[in-house]
């Protein structure tokens, strides 16, 4: 299964998406983070705001994935995790974080980002580390927003990040609730 997703992801990346220079993307993201720090002056609020912006991106980005892949509905969280990594991350950032550390109930897992482009050129000042900034927090919001649109309510957060001095960058995803999609929202 994982292999099939890998090849779908690679096929989409190679043939179905236009590319842009990574540096333009990375610098623009960095500039946005600086803007948020100026606007909010508090790293926790910046984290929250990055998550919110990511959520807004995620609820739109999911249709980008679905309209380019013709994926069928995932049967369980393990499949969902593979799709997030091998198709989602691949077709936007050309990376595929490894999926690991499953909880016993198979509802919670980690995405290990060995190579997070957002972190390129990024060196956090000590006060940002102390202040608790999760520099790439936008990614959590993206995952949360995208999954919500297909009926999966999840909690997503960074637990480790190399730019904060950790050994790896790790995002923890936990399934909280599955929405019943057969009953359309707002249909009384």
């Amino acid at each position, binding site marked *: 299964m994982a292999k099939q997703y890998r090849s779908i992801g690679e096929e989409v990346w190679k043939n179905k998406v236009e590319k842009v220079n990574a540096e333009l993307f990375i610098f623009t993201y960095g500039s946005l983070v600086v803007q948020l720090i100026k606007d909010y002056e508090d790293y926790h609020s910046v984290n929250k705001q990055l998550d919110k912006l990511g959520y807004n991106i995620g609820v739109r980005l999911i249709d980008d994935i679905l309209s380019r892949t013709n994926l069928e509905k995932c049967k369980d969280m393990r499949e969902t995790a593979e799709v997030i990594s091998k198709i989602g991350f691949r077709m936007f950032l*050309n990376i595929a974080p490894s999926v690991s550390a499953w909880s016993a109930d198979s509802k919670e897992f980690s995405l290990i980002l060995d190579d997070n482009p957002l972190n390129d050129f990024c060196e956090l000042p000590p006060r940002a580390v102390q202040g608790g900034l999760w520099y790439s927090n936008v990614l959590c919001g993206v995952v949360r927003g995208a999954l919500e649109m297909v009926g999966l309510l999840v909690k997503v957060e960074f637990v480790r990040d190399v730019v904060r001095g950790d050994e790896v960058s790790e995002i923890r995803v936990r399934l909280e609730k599955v929405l019943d999609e057969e009953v359309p929202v707002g249909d009384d």
Partner: protein
Amino acid sequence: MATAQRQSLLKLDNKATKRANMLLEQNVAKQRRDKVSLNAFALLFSEIIQYSQNRVLGIQDLESKLSEIGYRVGLRVFELAMWREKTVHRETRVLNTLVFINTVVWRTLFDKQADSLERSTESEDEYMITDNEPSILKFISVPKEMSSFSPGAFISGVVEAIVECCQCPARVTSHVVPADGMPLRTVILLKFDKEVMGREKQLEAGK
């Protein structure tokens, strides 16, 4: 900004053309950079515009907000270009700076050269860089009630940072000037500071 009133700088100046080609070749040779999807950028940029829009009152404020975000990108792009193009020295002359932007900067950012670089025939301190189809604006449709808004303000911010790094500060603005089949054709207008133009004259005279 009628076409008749403009003259193509690159066509006029043979030296500039040669230099442009040289810079381009250098850059191509060195190009092995990672990419991300344009969709990722487009979604991020769209969100930046929405975020900024919620924090400003009018179109001008929105443009200066975007320009500010682009400005910081420009500073980094300049550093990167200087570091990468080891044979390129920091330009300080207006024409060289413009050619540098038109070629190296555009290629670093957009994988292509800008479509034209021209001098205004009306005032000699004004120059225009045109991109017929800025890829990063590809999906944007500006609503009619905001028709004066130019999302290219982000790009003008980048350019503003770079001319400052090259000691040629200018006021840089962005304008959507649609042409056939190119609804987002964007003209970046640079008006160089008086000091810059004065210095240029002295340098010309001292030649």
